[in-house]
């Protein structure tokens, strides 16, 4: 299983594809089309601007805007042999400053910028260079392939952290190479120049790596879903209008389309690839009916192990679910999965719950400049089958007799909402920064056919909901904000003296 994986220089794959498919459409974004030739010109021009600044850092930041230049900037950064670090303009300034400081970057590229970018410019004056990609030098398409190895960085992404600080995950080209062989070059997925591929993700979400990097390498056409609050409707629009052939989706999108299942008919769709959160069996079955020729693939993996490490091709004849959730499947090429019990011993019997550990070439080296969290989650393990570093996922799973993995529950307070990974403790941590707040409990509860984050506060002071929400808005991205905040003089307790979550949940539903 653990062969030495092949190494791929992704920029070389990209460049070959640009030259081979020069006149073909590369990307459609914001109603505008760019051919591979035009796209490569942009990459070369941005590469020149970047090289005019002598950057010393491992990564270069991209201030993400809804435009083609954001995508060409990714490739321009990779062309310099450095990793790209996407910066999400929807995040509050405080959080952006925190992650930018941790990243250690000395250069940020942007196109137009906005007020928030000005704030960042002012904060990092003299420390970080900001260059705009707006000016355009179309004089050259000559660009060298960067000299990189397995340890060169490809990208840096931040995920929610329990103690109020986001954790950086740096993925190198060794990690990425394995994903290239398991997905981009995998005949089962057959990515090719006839494909029209869906891109619905924010670039700070690691699932975006599959469409954004691999579409360009396979000569396919990438269709970016317009930024809009009603993502699910925009996704459906893009799928149907542009006759998408291969779609990367989060399960909540098709769940939200539930009311329209009987109206949806997508005969061109060859497969739908799911990642990011639990895929419900009922949604998978209904989606299958909407895409008569389409395969359904479920996948699983944390950012720390480079997008995904298990996959499952959903077939109707196999028993493929556990309590209504589709199987996570088996590990992909060169990757290993292992269930450990509380004593750290490997579970080899079937259908016994254990915590899932991941190992293999896609597992990152640890959290970026964060030794403490690295020690917690990247463990040295020694069992009969494997000795070395493994990533502790916090996911409790079972394996069946065919070695197929099923998700059971989380071992901690982490939740998934619309594909986003959220530590409820991080919300509580920030709420507790208000001195009037004695206790804070964040919960994910079902309200009106959907799930929402709510926050219960214990405080003597009345009417501080607004004040707390305003503070949270300064610290947390929009997807982590509670939809409701309730203040209690004292939180309801059960007979054991613990906070009574059932009582809390019903008080929010009133």
């Amino acid at each position, binding site marked *: 299983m653990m062969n030495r994986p092949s190494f791929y220089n992704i920029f070389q794959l990209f460049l070959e594809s640009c030259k081979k498919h020069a006149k073909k459409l590369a990307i459609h974004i914001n109603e505008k089309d760019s051919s591979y030739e035009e796209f490569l010109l942009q990459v070369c021009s941005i590469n020149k601007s970047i090289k005019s600044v002598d950057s010393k850092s491992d990564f270069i930041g991209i201030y993400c805007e809804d435009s083609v230049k954001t995508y060409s900037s990714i490739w321009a950064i990779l062309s310099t042999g450095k990793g790209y670090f996407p910066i999400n303009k929807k995040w509050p300034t405080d959080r952006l400053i925190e992650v930018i400081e941790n990243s250690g970057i000395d250069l940020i590229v942007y196109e137009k910028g906005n007020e928030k970018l000005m704030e960042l410019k002012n904060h990092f004056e003299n420390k970080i260079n900001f260059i705009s990609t707006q000016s355009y030098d179309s004089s050259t398409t000559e660009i060298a392939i960067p000299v990189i190895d397995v340890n060169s960085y490809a990208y840096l992404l931040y995920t929610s952290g329990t103690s109020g600080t986001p954790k950086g995950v740096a993925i190198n080209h060794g990690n990425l190479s394995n994903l290239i062989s398991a997905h981009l070059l995998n005949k089962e997925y057959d990515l090719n120049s006839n494909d029209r591929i869906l891109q619905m993700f924010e670039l700070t979400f690691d699932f975006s790596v599959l469409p954004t990097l691999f579409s360009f390498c396979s000569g396919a056409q990438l269709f970016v879903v317009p930024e809009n*609050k009603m993502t699910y409707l925009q996704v459906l629009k893009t799928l149907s209008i542009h006759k998408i052939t291969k779609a990367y989706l989060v399960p909540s999108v098709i769940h939200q*389309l539930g009311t329209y299942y009987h109206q*949806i008919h997508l005969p061109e769709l060859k497969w739908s690839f799911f990642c990011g959160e639990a895929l419900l069996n009922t949604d998978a079955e209904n989606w299958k009916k909407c895409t008569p020729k389409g395969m359904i693939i479920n996948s699983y993996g944390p950012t720390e192990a480079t997008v995904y490490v298990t996959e499952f091709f959903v077939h109707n004849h196999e028993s493929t679910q556990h309590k209504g959730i589709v199987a996570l499947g088996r590990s992909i090429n060169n990757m290993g999965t292992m269930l450990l019990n509380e004593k750290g011993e490997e579970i080899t019997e079937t259908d016994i719950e254990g915590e899932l550990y991941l190992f293999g070439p896609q597992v990152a080296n640890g959290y970026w400049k964060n030794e403490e969290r690295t020690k917690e989650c990247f463990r040295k393990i020694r069992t009969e089958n494997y000795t070395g570093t493994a990533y502790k996922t916090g996911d409790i799973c079972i394996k069946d007799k065919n070695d197929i993995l099923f998700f059971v529950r989380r071992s901690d307070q982490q939740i998934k909402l619309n594909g986003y990974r959220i530590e409820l403790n991080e919300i509580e941590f920030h709420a507790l920064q208000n001195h009037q707040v004695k206790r804070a409990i964040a919960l994910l509860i079902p309200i*009106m*056919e959907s799930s929402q984050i709510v926050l219960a506060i214990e405080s003597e002071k009345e009417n501080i909901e607004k004040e707390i929400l305003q503070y949270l808005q300064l610290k947390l991205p929009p997807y982590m904000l509670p939809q409701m905040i309730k203040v209690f003089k004292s939180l309801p307790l059960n007979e054991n003296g613990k906070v009574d979550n059932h009582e809390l949940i019903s008080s929010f539903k009133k």
Partner: protein
Amino acid sequence: MEEIKNELTEIFKRVFRKENIELKDELNANDIDTWTSMTNIVLLNEIEKKYELEFHFLEVMDLNNVGELIKLIDNKLNRNS
């Protein structure tokens, strides 16, 4: 149209959990913090129930504001009568 607007106001208050909502034609999802993709589904379901009609996804995917929503409901009701 005025009647639809008044009826919709009640639905909006309930779905978005806001005591004071004044429906104007230009009002859109960016103006109400609790108007998300999830509550949008609840909103459309409540409207379908109230007026006994069914939306097609092609009709609702390009709605930009409350004015367009009211026009759509009005059109569908007139077509049915």
